[in-house]
């Protein structure tokens, strides 16, 4: 008897919990929708004729479609979005590659090889981490002009590629790898180069993937560095191209929104593919920048 009533009580409570969970989910869906409204507005506006842009109440689903024309104007007009895309892909991919290689090597050197001065040098790397990149913009600009790196993609790639953040992130993972692997490889006569390439890199592949995706996203979305260090329009990344396009076509909101959608979509795809890594990477160190 008592057990029966207890059971009824728990099922009732469980049902109450699941109803409450459903209500919370619906409320959160509403909140999420409001949160995303700017993106939905952008998307819908990008597919409208200009005269319909400011109709109120907002026509979320355009009455007159003009998607093809708007996007064609953005992609084949004076602003060369194909070129901006290519520049962004080039800079982001090469920066990511360089940064991963440099960071993984340093992470290995700082944890698995013993040499005098190691701790002091690591401390030096640690201290430079707190120097904000914004503080060195002016002297770097002067230095870049005298080194011939100003207004080049190489200059951008080098700046992003030597970020110390990757060293910290990967060092945590390399540190967690047992020395036994390395010692037994050494007994077999392997040098550090072989150990690094054949043993270490495969072992820290998930961490490398996480860092690579984050670095790619940060480089792709970086506005500040190309803005300061590039001036030739032919070298513009998508961020600079987008901003120049908005300045020139400020009054054609439907076109500006089509350009915005074009600037966001590739990264959205990268993010959706790599969301697990991105979220892990962000929650790991709470890293950003």
């Amino acid at each position: 008897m008592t057990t029966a009533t207890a059971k009824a009580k728990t099922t009732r409570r469980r049902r109450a919990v699941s109803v409450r969970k459903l209500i919370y989910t619906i409320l959160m869906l509403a909140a999420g929708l409001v949160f995303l409204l700017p993106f939905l507005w952008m998307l819908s506006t990008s597919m409208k004729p200009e005269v319909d842009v400011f109709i109120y109440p907002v026509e979320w689903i355009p009455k007159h479609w003009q998607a093809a024309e708007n996007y064609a104007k953005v992609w084949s007009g004076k602003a060369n979005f194909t070129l901006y895309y290519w520049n962004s892909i080039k800079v982001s991919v090469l920066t990511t590659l360089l940064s991963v290689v440099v960071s993984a090597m340093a992470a290995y050197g700082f944890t698995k090889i013993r040499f005098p001065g190691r701790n002091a040098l690591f401390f030096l790397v640690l201290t430079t981490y707190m120097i904000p990149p914004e503080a060195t913009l002016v002297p770097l600009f002067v230095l870049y002009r005298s080194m011939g790196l100003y207004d080049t993609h190489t200059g951008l790639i080098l700046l992003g590629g030597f970020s110390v953040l990757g060293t910290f992130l990967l060092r945590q993972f390399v540190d967690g790898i047992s020395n036994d692997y390395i010692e037994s490889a050494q007994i077999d006569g392997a040098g550090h180069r072989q150990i690094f390439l054949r043993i270490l890199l495969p072992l820290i592949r998930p961490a490398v993937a996480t860092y690579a995706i984050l670095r790619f996203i940060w480089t792709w979305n970086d506005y500040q560095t190309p803005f300061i260090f590039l001036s030739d329009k032919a070298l513009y990344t998508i961020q600079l191209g987008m901003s120049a396009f908005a300045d020139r076509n400020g009054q054609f909101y439907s076109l500006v929104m089509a350009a915005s959608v074009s600037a966001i979509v590739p990264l959205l795809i990268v993010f959706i593919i790599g969301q697990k890594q991105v979220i892990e990477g962000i929650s790991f160190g709470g890293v950003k920048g």
Partner: protein
Amino acid sequence: MSQARIPAKTNAASLRTQEGRRRRRREIAAGYVFIGPMLIGILLFTIIPMLMLFLFSLTDWSFLTGYDKLKIVGFHNFSRLLHDQDFGQSLVHNLIMLLAVPIGMALALLLAVIITERVHLSGFFKVIFFMPQISSIVAVAVVWQVLFHPSYGPVNGMLSAIGIDSPPKWLADPHYALPSVMLLMIWIDLGVGLIIYIAGLKNIPRDLYEAADIDGSSAWTKFRKITFPLLTPTSFFLLITGIIANFKAFALIKVLTDGGPAHATSVIVYDMYEQGFVNLKTGYASSMAVVLFLIILFITFLQWMFQRKWVHNG
């Protein structure tokens, strides 16, 4: 081959030390080869620029004129900064913008608690709230400029539809521009706080809540007595990184308002950019960058102090 590496006991001691020394030298060389690229990068792109910055900050100079025109003026730039009203105003704007950090954190915490415990589709919500963070800041700024448009924008369209006669002009109004920028900052960074709080929540042992359930504690009590205190390190981390990011703010301001209207949204990095790259005053801009560096140094120092205290107490 491998036998040669393990000296037999009968070998002469000298032979052993010679072999050991050779191996030691190789080890040291390998160490420097592996950390070398990173060290060269830091030297070239951080340490040398930093030394140049300190030097430039003591000069009256424009990079266009060449090094022979460089004039050392001591701390003149810094005493000038003290009386520079525009810079003072920008510093005040940075300080006001700090308010956005705790507000954003509170929102992120609220959403994190709901998403971790109370909803279906939690992975989906993480992606939604993270979207502004992965979007191009230029595109985001352009969209909000139009949404906030004083006369045609949908935001004011909605406000006048519900009967507000003279809605604020948002980014075009000196009084509302800074709060509008802060609103946008909260919107952009919410996803980061959310994800870090969710990770923090997952680290809280479940049995604490179970024990509280047995005691019959309410949800609010559990939040106050368990969740919030145990998340202190996470909150502190978010607070510090939020404050630092705030002082470094530039890109959003540049594309959204260009410091305007009437200097209402200028910040210290924006002033530095204007002096260094528009007015071409390399020396003066450098002194502003030194101030930025000192502020961040101070915040990092505070963080270090507090963390040490925690390690000792906890």
